[in-house]
């Protein structure tokens, strides 16, 4: 009973945060509501006994990605948007039905499958030691690849975002 209430609360926070993130006019508010949605999801991960992933979600999504998004909003002058400008793209009338259709298909297939109404096994543990062992034994290739990927992404982001030095105007003889 308590379980269901906690789940409904966290799910409500997540969904309200997500809807607000997509619908608000002020971009900074959108970014902060998205951070709230991420935090709600972290609570659901914790309820699902995935402690490590829950804390990693808070550390990475709320602590780094939300801040990145906020920085990007401020650097692209999204903070001071004119109230009369349109916020939706010209083809929004296509986007919403597509989203609704996808949701309808997914929920339809979920409800149609009786196996998905099962209850979980009790006493599931994901000890950090085991996660570490799997990372180093079974999943060592993805681990090293993700390391390479993160390095490449870091270098790429720095290079793309670099401000080009202004070349001095040359007077042609």
């Amino acid at each position, binding site marked *: 009973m308590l379980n269901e209430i906690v789940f409904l609360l966290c799910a409500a926070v997540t969904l309200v945060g997500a809807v607000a993130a997509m619908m608000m006019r002020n971009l*900074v*508010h959108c970014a*902060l509501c998205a*951070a709230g949605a991420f*935090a709600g999801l972290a609570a659901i991960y914790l309820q699902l006994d995935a*402690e*490590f992933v829950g*804390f*990693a979600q*808070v*550390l990475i999504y*709320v*602590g*780094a990605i*939300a*801040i990145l998004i*906020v*920085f990007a909003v*401020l650097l692209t002058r999204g*903070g001071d948007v004119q109230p009369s400008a349109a916020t939706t793209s010209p083809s929004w009338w296509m986007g919403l039905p597509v989203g609704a259709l996808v949701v309808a298909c997914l929920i339809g297939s979920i409800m149609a499958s009786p196996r998905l109404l099962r209850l979980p096994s009790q006493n599931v543990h994901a*000890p*950090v*030691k085991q996660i570490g062992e799997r990372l180093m034994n079974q999943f060592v290739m993805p681990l090293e690849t993700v390391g390479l990927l993160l390095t490449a992404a870091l270098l790429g982001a720095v290079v793309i975002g670099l401000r080009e030095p202004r070349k001095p105007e040359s007077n042609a003889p």
Partner: protein
Amino acid sequence: MAGWFPTSVQPLVSALLAIACIMPLFGLCFALTTIVERKVLGRMQNRFGPNRVGPYGLLQPLADGVKMLTKEDIVPFSADKTLHFLAPLVLTVPVWLAFAVLPIGRNMSAIQLDAGILFFFAVGSASELAVFMAGWSSQNKYSLVGAMRAIAQMISYEVPLVLSVVPVLMLAGSLELNDIVAAQGTYTIGGLACWNVFTPWGFAGLMLFLIAATAESNRSPFDLPEGESEIIAGFLTEYSGFKYALFFLGEYLGLFAVTGLAVTLFLGGWHAPFQWLEWVPSWLWFAGKFGALIFLFIWVRATLPRLRLDQLLNYAWRFLVPLCLINLLVAAVWYWSGTWKSPVAVPVRWLVCAALIALPYHGLARILRGALPPPRKYSYAE
């Protein structure tokens, strides 16, 4: 004590009891630290601190509290009201959560999480958004610039903070804080305890952790975001009264949390330094080490001048991060050399590990120092 209640309510009751113990304890610590800091800073600057209220000024926190609570709560007209209200809350609430995993004494940590340290760093990084919320919602360009600088500083110093902790986790083999304290519980020859700080990588790690912790809590010499002579008050400019008190509280609580973590990870937690001192209660040892580190922070604040923003960021990325990575290597060498069996192993191990830390430190400092200014010529009045 939670055994008095029926079983179904026990987890809730034990959680409430833990909260009821932690909140007044660290609240009292906060009040004490404000007055101790001002007195110690005053003495180091050759003046008395506050000494009017109560004997030796010890009731000053009460006076400060009354002042903060009765000040008028001014919100700027064009400020974003909801964000302006929420920012102090978002700052303070995650920091209270961080105290739950600290082992204050033997069997005295509120919750035992399998990934305790990750929980600690996660709630630490959750309070960074609050700084941005405070700066942006004030709609004041000084606040915004202060908030941006504060966030840049906090995310830059998160990297050395976490990296300097990784050698401890490597050698303790667990992320749970109680296990890390237990791994420092043995005593070597002469009865001296085997704390992590008495190893080369542990000493370097403690130094790096303390520097990164000073920067994470926006304390001098890293207090550019809220420097009083710099940018009015940075992101705190438009806050007054109780909200300012909440920011103040959140900052000091953050300091206590990282100090507690430093004591746990590097200084042996609640263990006594010598085996024959084990009869002293464990929380007294924790409190003693905690107080010593807080005194160190206050001492550093009184002594060092403030760093400029570019100096600060260069220091983090070009000096601290390479040193943290080298520290990882040294910890690995220490672990591997722990299996040597020859009688000359111990001094050689110490020498090799210490050299592996000290030489890059010296080299990096030389490279990054740049050109020294020419020696000063003093001219005296005739």
